[in-house]
């Protein structure tokens, strides 16, 4: 079941990357990043069956970092939305790109 899990994890990660590349809404981008983190968590859990329970501990750390990242990222999106009146990444040009 481990090989299959790694396969699933890779597929989910690829879907997440595809989402980041395709979507333009900042919120959707963020959710795609969450999906990628989840995909990585799946491979951590799968490999923890081979390499001991440490993989599950890493998953807990990843979840903590994801929660912190979501809080700060969403605050940035809210601040940007207030300033630019849009959540579309094409409209957000802080660095003048």
């Amino acid at each position, binding site marked *: 079941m481990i090989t299959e899990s790694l396969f699933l994890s890779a*597929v989910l990660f690829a879907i997440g990357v595809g989402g980041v590349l395709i979507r333009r809404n900042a919120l959707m981008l963020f959710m795609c990043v969450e999906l990628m983190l*989840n995909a990585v968590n799946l491979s951590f859990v799968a490999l923890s069956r081979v390499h001991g329970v440490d993989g*599950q501990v890493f998953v807990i750390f990843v979840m903590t970092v994801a*929660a912190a990242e979501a809080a700060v990222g969403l605050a940035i999106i809210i601040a940007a939305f207030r300033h630019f009146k849009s959540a579309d990444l094409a409209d957000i040009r802080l660095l003048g790109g």
Partner: protein
Amino acid sequence: MAIPMATQVQFWLFGLLAVVSALLFVTRKSPVAAALWLVNTMFCLSGLYVMLDAPFVGAVQVLVYAGAIMVVFLFVVMLLNLSADDLKVDLRSPGVRAGAVIVGILMAAEIFIATRVALPPVPALRPNGGNAVTEVASSLFRDHLVAFEITSVLLLVAIIGAVTLAKREGSA
């Protein structure tokens, strides 16, 4: 190691559901619908965790991801109140989409190669008779105690950062 047929069916059911939900999540126009599909993906992943003998991580997945993080996302989606024309042009230009297809093909090749690589055999589960939570806890609080404590600082910084960023300019 032979895996019972029913377990395999369950595993692929959860896996297939997770992938289909993820695809629907990426392609939905409305952020609310997308977020709900992502919650579904996370529930399926939680089921997979339980099947992979990590019930504690499965429970935490539902509580933290589906319960907390996605609810915050939904709050923000509704707070921003995106209008319909904001969502019409959500997909990027054809060039970028072609690039995404190329990345997808590369990753598919990677998956194909990964399935050729043999993994070491799985040892017997818990030879010393501990339970799942005990194992995670002893690893977390013994081997990774410093990292665990530093996590609290990270969370504090994140809270302060979020409050500072989301505060309206000019208000105290």
